[in-house]
């Protein structure tokens, strides 16, 4: 059991607005170490958390540009490496390479988007003991908050008032997939 888990508390909510209320109040209390669990992405939660924009788009852009460059480079370089004329066309036939470049733009863009997702969302995250409850994948919302020293009671108060169906102090860390 980690020290962090020691200090935190996990609240389970049945309703969205209750969760949002709890987050906003926790933020007002300057509890910054909050993890929210949700079965469905809801903008209400994002707004409440005031999260910065995801950097995945940078990955997409860089991947796509790399792909385009790779496509043109591949066509051009291989044509020059062993020049073979076909159909009286020039050695470097850019219109044809546009298609290769386009496909590689998409391919590299997509793959680097996935890489961006995995890196930013810290996935895969398997076999580690974490705070989790299977109910979060079914229909429940959850907030795991780590209060700063001395805030424990207030946090508990906020969660309870907001409408938490259950509040677990020092929840047990589990391996997802085993419960």
């Amino acid at each position, binding site marked *: 059991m980690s020290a962090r888990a020691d200090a935190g508390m996990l609240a389970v909510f049945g309703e969205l607005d209750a969760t949002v209320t709890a987050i906003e109040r926790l933020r007002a209390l300057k509890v910054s170490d909050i993890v929210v669990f949700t079965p469905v992405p809801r903008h209400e939660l994002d707004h409440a958390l005031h999260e910065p924009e995801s950097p995945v788009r940078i990955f997409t852009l860089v991947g796509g540009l790399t792909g385009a460059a790779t496509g043109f480079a591949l066509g051009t370089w291989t044509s020059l490496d062993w020049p073979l004329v076909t159909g*009286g066309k020039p050695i470097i036939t850019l219109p044809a390479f546009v298609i290769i470049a386009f496909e590689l733009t998409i391919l590299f863009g997509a793959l680097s988007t996935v890489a961006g997702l995995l890196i930013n969302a810290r996935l895969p995250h398997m076999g580690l003991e974490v705070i989790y409850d299977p109910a979060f994948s079914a229909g429940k919302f959850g907030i795991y908050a780590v209060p700063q020293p001395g805030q424990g009671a207030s946090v508990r108060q906020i969660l309870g008032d907001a409408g938490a169906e259950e509040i677990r102090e020092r929840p047990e860390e589990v391996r997802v997939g085993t419960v």
Partner: protein
Amino acid sequence: MERRDFLKVVGTAAGAGALASCSNTGGVPPERMLPYVIGEPEIVPGISTYYRTTCRECPAGCGMDVRTREGRALKADGNPLSPISHGKLCARGQASLHGLYNPDRVPQALVRQGGPKDADPWKKLSWDQAEQQLADALARGRGRAVFLTQNYTGTLDRLVTDWCAALGVERVIYDTFAWEPVRTANRLLFGVDGVPVHDFAQAEVVLNFGADFLETWISPVDYAHGFVQGNAYRAGKRGKLYALSAHQTLTDLNAEEWVPVKPGTEPLVALAIARLVAERAGGAGAGAAAPLLAGVNVDAAAAAAGISPEKIRQIAQDFGNGGRSLAVGPGPAAQHRNATAVAAAVAILNSVAGNYGHTLSFARLEEHAGRSASYAQMQQLLGRLRSGQVQVLLVDGPNPLYAFPAQDDVAGALAKVPFIASFSSYLDETSERAHLLLPDHHFLESWGDYVPRTGVRSIVQPVMMPVFDTKLKGDVLLSVATRAKATLPNAAPTFYDYLRGSWQREVQPAAGGAGAFEAWWEESLKAGVVLTAGAAAPAGGAAAPALQAAGLARIRFEAASFDAAPAGSGESLILLAYPSYRFYDGRMADRAWLQELPDPVHKVTWDSVLEISPVTAKRLGLDDGNVVEVTTSHGKATLPVWRHPGMRPDVVALQMGLGHRGFGRYADGRGVNVASLLGAVAEPESGAMVWQQVTARVKPTGEWARMSMQNQVKTESGREITRDISLADARRLEAGAVVAGASAGSPARESARERYPEHVDVTGNPKGKVVGELQAAGGFAPETVTAGPADYPPPHTYYGEYSEAQPRWAMAIDMERCIGCSACTTACYAENNIGIVGPEQVARGRHLQWIRIERYFEGPEAETAPTHVNFLPMLCQQCGNAPCEPVCPVYAAYHTPDGLNAQIYNRCVGTRYCANNCPYKVRVFNWFTWQWPEPLNWQLNPDVGVREKGVMEKCTFCVQRIRDAQNEARLQGRGVHDGEIVPACAQTCPGEAIVFGNVKDPNSRVAQVAASGRGYRVLEELNTQPAITYLKRVVDASEA
């Protein structure tokens, strides 16, 4: 002989290497290399050796060059020194290698031990035993023995004659095509039992009465070569061939004008023409025939022949300008009950036109054509066999059991002979009845000589060790003579020595050969042919022989009669049997190359078809492939029809050569033997077999057979694949003029001209104003392609090895000189290891021809009555902007720096995209891995890979020859000369229609020919920039 004894070794590259397929499957078990035991200075592994010999596939006797590698014959071509072949060969000559390597050859001496029904009635014999058996049989049958031989001339003929005399054997020479009518007419009219040499090259107008002189008639390669020289357009002139026949053979399809005369009326028509010619010439040359001609009624003749009298007058007008014309005929294709009268009328025609001494002369005879017994004499022989007068029959060549009608009962006659020995190397129908088989060497394994015509001695020499345990017939005869203790004049231990002796005694002095015999002999072997006195045509023409009245009186100049059709339902139509370009009289039917070769006219492979006029077919409700039952008084056959636009509605035609029973896997059971439909009728005067004798009853069966043929269309369907030009335009072009609408002839363009005169110009292209309007409206304008063959590849492709300094290999094909004979196709098969796919696959369109002859009937009613036929050799056009190249995903198709459209087999994955995108459809695909049964695979060219299944292939312009020449030139530190590289198709073309070379060199022949005003490139509107320039056919040769 000795020096080839050590060739029993397998070359390093030719052996296993050539048999491996395209994919390298690894080297287990290890490949072995067998060295020579004793090296041969003239044989270097990897380098070809050439031997000169004489083709013996038909009696014509063309000189031949055979290429060998590591002791194996690979390719046959014409000997350029031979006046018979001019360095050219027909398809049959090309296919002689398939005779040499035929898998169904008799592998050794065999004796019959069981009845004909036994699974394998043959027992192997050693040659010693076999010769002894023959000697014993001859001793028993002395005085009652007959040696039935083919038509030999030269030293072997001498030996056989002497041998027969010494052993008390009667000799009968027989050839199915014995030209009896021509010989008889010449004998009666001029006292010469022979056939003169015809000089087609000198003839401006030729009248053909059923002689297929481009196919089988007398000396087809020489005649085809000469015909093209005389007939094709050059220097503002063009010859003219009139075909007077009921059915157009390949020869007649080459005619400027086909005159559909009723079968049997040729004597009347020929005499009518002769009368008019004689009248014009004021009676000169008519001589003894003058009274006869005076009695000829032109209108009656025209009416009898079913043609207009004007036509006869027109022909007479054209014919006979002081020995510059020629009338020929008949051949087996017009051998009816009065064929001698045709020949006599033709002779009179030549006589009144003053052609003797100019375009033909008895000073030079076709030696081979004047020797055979007639069919009637053969019938007598059969009668003697039947009556048991013959104890021993030796057969070498003739196959009467196949060639004779059932009425002759050849089988019954043969059954009466106690001992039959055959020298045939193939188990044909007659040999199969033999008791003893003494397989002779193939001529490519033999020593010998041949006298095709006066003054020409052509050498037959072995080009390789025998493939099987066969023995040279001459050696067998000498050995048997020794065993029989018979003494022969000039006897020698082997036939080789006998031959040399004969040449030393006779030929060297006759040829004026100086010096020691050995040196002269070596020289002669290198030349392959020796000319003795009388070989050349006499300068200034020979004296014209006079017509003999006595002979003339014996000939009845009447129309021939035909047997009536048997009673029954169906149409009665006269059955015309005619010789096959591919199979001759049937002796070549066991050659896979020839079976796979589309017939030059009907294009069907591997099978017989009944040719029928489209008019008659329509009446009977028949389409190509519909099966009919043909019944004559003598037999019945069921076969599909093919609608031939070039025949009269009252006839059907059936080609000879197929319908064998036995004779190897490639011939057995394919098609219909025309003899089975005929009766045993000999022409009274000449004794010739009457091929055109019966009227058949033709009845549709309602069935349809998928014929093994490439295509079903007969016309171009509105495309501009072939193009014509009028003589007047051709002349104007030659003078440098720009001829508007010179590319006319396309129905599409013509139709566009008629329908939209305000929008298109005379050429059928949109007018400039229309183009401007199109462009103003944002449309594309048709881009005029101005680049010629030499202007490619374009400079924007120059990079790396691609540079301006590279040649562009190109071809020019003169359609005026293409007679459609398809020898090029077989030559290509031989050179490029093209797979033989068989009838079922051909029927599906899976043939692998790299070069094909497209035959399009032309004219407003092309489907029923064409005005002429265009033959177009279609092969890879090696396009500068090849559509096949950029679509290949793996660069298997690409353009080489020297302008070739390359196909790299080992890179080919087999997407077939290239073939889809080829507008010329010259790419062919290996749908399966094709087989060459041992020893046919010995023929495979080691310089060319063998393609496995899944690989696209096509014409390479014989790149192996290009590379060979380049290597050779490089080793000698020079460039490649113009004319040094000759692709296989160009090499064998009897019309010399194909010219090859570097088109970028303005001095090369190909560049000069391609620059002709008649030049055009097929489908050039697609901007493919083909490297092949076709020269338009010149039509309408009448003075414009």
